[in-house]
């Protein structure tokens, strides 16, 4: 299933809760994209989860926050059309609000 995270991993427990629970794909949007940036404390958590989960991040939200140039290797960036594709490709979606 598609797991959508829109909260910063540094400010809310949603990111950790999702990673502990999710099967399938993770899509990082809005403040959730801070988890996709290299160099922060969240990087190790993302990398550890990459073995079992596929990671995506929304390009427009990365650009808005000035971190599009530091996306962790292995995370696929998608635009809004790609977001829609992910929703349709997965049978269900869970938003970790």
């Amino acid at each position, binding site marked *: 299933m598609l797991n959508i995270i*829109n*909260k*910063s991993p*540094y*400010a809310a427990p949603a990111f950790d809760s999702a990673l502990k629970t999710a099967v399938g794909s993770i899509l990082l949007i*809005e*403040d959730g994209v*801070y988890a996709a*940036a*290299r*160099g*922060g*404390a969240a*990087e190790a958590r993302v990398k550890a989860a990459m073995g079992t989960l596929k990671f995506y991040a929304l*390009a*427009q*939200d990365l*650009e*808005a*926050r*000035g*971190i*599009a*140039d*530091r996306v962790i290797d292995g995370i696929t960036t998608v635009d809004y059309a790609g977001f829609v594709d992910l929703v349709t490709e997965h049978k269900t979606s869970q938003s970790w609000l």
Partner: protein
Amino acid sequence: MAKQFMFVNRKAPYGTIYAWESLEVVLIAAAFDQDVSLAFLDDGVFQLKKGHATKGIGVKAFEKTWGALEDYDITKLYVDQESLAERGLTADDLAIPVEVLSRAEIGKLMEAQDVVLSF
């Protein structure tokens, strides 16, 4: 008489309206010639990250407004070192010059204020 106003910013930009609302009140306080300082802790440090390109999400970027703070005589910008480090950032990643301090130092500055506004 001017009072010491500190604005404590702890939220990332764009995801919520807090950061923008803070900036609005900062400019109002400065327009009333108050002694204004800004503290950035936790995800608030993300507000200052340089290179925001917000066209794709359809909102105004913060970067230009930070540059205008000096015109309002707002020069006291304090950033928590620990919050930067946890997020993989250094002062070089920020859009404007700031004073990087420890949490204890920021705590002391907060304690010394007449008014603290939390965002």
